[in-house]
């Protein structure tokens, strides 16, 4: 039996944060039904973000919404709303990421929905929580990276604040939502009670920085200082970072500096016997390393470093990674097929259960593709 077999999720959310949570629930066996606006659907279908398209929709939409069904409805239409309420009465979970106030106008807040289905697990994603001066502002990934201090942690000291080039806030918020929903489903299994589960992008991206924020809170509010050279983590000593070689890049994690000097045959590093200096003089050390590593190839250095047990790696792009047997062995790629028969290659769920990869061949739905099927399954009366 799949972990979430027979669990029905109504997903009213759009873009990435909410939908990434419901994707994971779908991977683990839940039936996820996207409730989408008639005519346009999830804005992610239309929002022209990636310049690569699959069947007229962005690759991003296909990646996020595989293994889901689509039910199109106009929530402002009384007849459609009644049908949605019938679905809600039979669902286990519902999720939305509308801005504060939208569900109130529709009469679909947790308080409203509880009356139809007291055991429902109601998940809600916001940008900045439901109070305070930011509550009405758009919860968008880059903007949350901007205000949360995150962009002061990556890249070198002389560089602008540098965002992470993947939607890290959306993804983390989605994981927290999924965790809350699942924990609440577990409680329902023991106590028979429903739950309201709320996450916000701001809280999630603060949680992500919990180790470093805790330093900030307890050391008198000192701001992070990125290293000037090869910054890998503002709080870590040399050699932590990425270095250029003759034909690419090599990453060095934590390590003993004089030992590293010995292995790399770099005598200049011998003088740093005092461990404290690995932090206080990290840019000096990193500068020596930069000059020393530049003339030889990555393979040359790895041949010295790896047998000595130094924590290091080649820095790879996708082309390089995908040639490696270790990547192929993971079987991370998966092909799904849309309702219209179009094949899309994407990645699978990163969790294995009972030794098995979780695989589903179902692609992202066409808008409203499953209306008839769902109305039949749940005996929806018009």
């Amino acid at each position: 039996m799949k972990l979430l077999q027979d669990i029905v999720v109504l997903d009213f959310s759009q873009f990435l944060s909410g939908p990434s949570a419901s994707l994971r629930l779908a991977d683990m066996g839940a039936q996820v039904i996207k409730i989408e606006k008639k005519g346009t659907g999830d804005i992610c279908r239309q929002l022209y973000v990636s310049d690569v398209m699959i069947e007229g929709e962005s690759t991003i939409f296909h990646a996020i919404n595989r293994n889901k069904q689509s039910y199109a409805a106009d929530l402002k239409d009384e007849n459609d709303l009644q049908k949605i309420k019938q679905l809600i009465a039979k669902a286990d979970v519902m999720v939305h990421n509308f801005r504060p106030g939208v569900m109130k106008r529709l009469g679909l807040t947790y308080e409203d929905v509880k009356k139809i289905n007291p055991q429902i697990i109601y998940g809600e994603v916001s940008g900045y929580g439901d109070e305070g001066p930011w509550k009405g502002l758009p919860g968008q990934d880059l903007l949350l990276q901007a205000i949360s201090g995150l962009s002061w942690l990556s890249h070198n000291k002389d560089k602008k604040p540098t965002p992470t080039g993947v939607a890290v806030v959306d993804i983390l918020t989605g994981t927290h939502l999924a965790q809350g929903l699942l924990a609440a489903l577990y409680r329902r299994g023991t106590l028979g009670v429903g739950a309201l589960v709320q996450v916000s992008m701001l809280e999630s991206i603060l949680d992500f920085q919990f180790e470093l924020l805790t330093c900030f809170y307890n050391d008198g509010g000192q701001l992070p200082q990125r290293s000037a050279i090869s910054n890998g983590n503002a709080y870590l000593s040399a050699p932590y970072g990425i270095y250029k070689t003759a034909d690419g890049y090599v990453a060095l994690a934590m390590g003993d500096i004089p030992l590293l000097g010995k292995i790399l045959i770099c005598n200049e590093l011998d003088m740093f016997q005092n461990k404290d200096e690995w932090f206080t003089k990290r840019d000096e050390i990193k500068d020596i390393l930069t000059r020393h590593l530049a003339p030889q190839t990555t393979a040359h250095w790895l041949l010295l470093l790896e047998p000595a047990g130094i924590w290091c790696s080649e820095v790879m792009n996708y082309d390089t990674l995908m040639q490696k047997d270790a990547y192929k062995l993971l079987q991370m790629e998966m092909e799904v097929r849309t309702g219209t028969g179009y094949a899309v290659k994407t990645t699978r769920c990163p969790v294995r259960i009972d030794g098995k990869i979780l695989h589903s061949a179902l692609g992202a739905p066409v808008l409203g593709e499953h209306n008839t099927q769902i109305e039949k399954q749940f005996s929806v009366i018009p």
Partner: protein
Amino acid sequence: MTDIVLPLNGLVVLEFCQYLSGPSAGLRLADLGARVIKIEHPEKGEAGRKLSIKNLWVGSDSLLFHTINRNKESFTADLKNAEELLTVKLLIKKADVLIHNFRPGVMEKIGLDYSTVKQINPSLIYAEISGYGKAGAWQSKPGQDLLLQSITGLAFASGDQDDAPVPCGVSIGDNLCGAQLVQGILAALIRRQKTGQGALVETSLMESLLDFQFELLTTYFASKQQPVRSKVSNANPLLSAPYGVYATQDGYIAIAMMNLAQLATAVDCHILHSYSQSDAFAKRDEIKEVITQHIAGNISSYWLEKLHAAGLWSMEIMDWQQLSTHEGYLCLEMEQTINVPGSDITTTRCPIKIDGNRIYSGTPAPLLGEHNQKIHEEILSEPVFTQPKL
């Protein structure tokens, strides 16, 4: 603490983990109500106790350890000692969840691998984290965050085109891997409620970081083209102009996705009007250069006022000093005090709200072996040194 019934009340989790990936999963389960017991070596303890950043210590353990391991208990056992291993097996018999992040082979050697342990407790949820999966040439490589960022292509997503690869300055692999593990564990617990069945839940830093890049990878599979960072203000290789961070006269602002003509009107930039929306990808570096020049001409608040008035998506770049005094931050009450004897510390709380309640816990990280006696009394009710029933 409020009067909410935490969802995982009553569950016992044994955490055989070190550093961040596994312990961050344990922390989340603890905050959601589980009783999380760290199983540690009697002398050495978890390696994270001695790993500090900025040389910050709370008593004999690092502040970092306190941050990750608050709200847990500690039980010591030498897993290489046959008698103590038996005690641990008794604990496992009573536990709901076991988590470990040893390298592949270690638990097998100790005799606590899943196939052995499920003989003791068939309904156990056994969850494990590896660096690179449990097979192949990389399985014995160190599962360290920066190395995984480097291997999975992630470092080529941040920074500008002419920069070296730029890693994310927070341990993203560890964090995500812990989060994925929690999802798997909770889903397995839900199945167990219905069927009584245990489960093996596995993930790795590598799979978690590839999953993290699923949008980029799916686009790569479809286009066969490496993602390209823009030359100017890259903030996501998949996105067109103006998406990025721009310097103003007194700071920086982030500008997200928006229509170019609307942007041109809002910030009154004539040159920008000469580009059509279809140029947003093809000429993104050129357009971003135009925006860079224009935005440099005034202060952040000036631009934000104009952009927000037009309903366009932008925010100021803040550091923690600015953020932590802002009403938008303060109203979240994200900070909590941990009651460490002699020196209270401040840290963040669980980011998930249940039934409208924020979840706080002031319980500090345990001293090494602090709960040995309590656990003997409360959980190990059977005689300690007997063979568990197989």
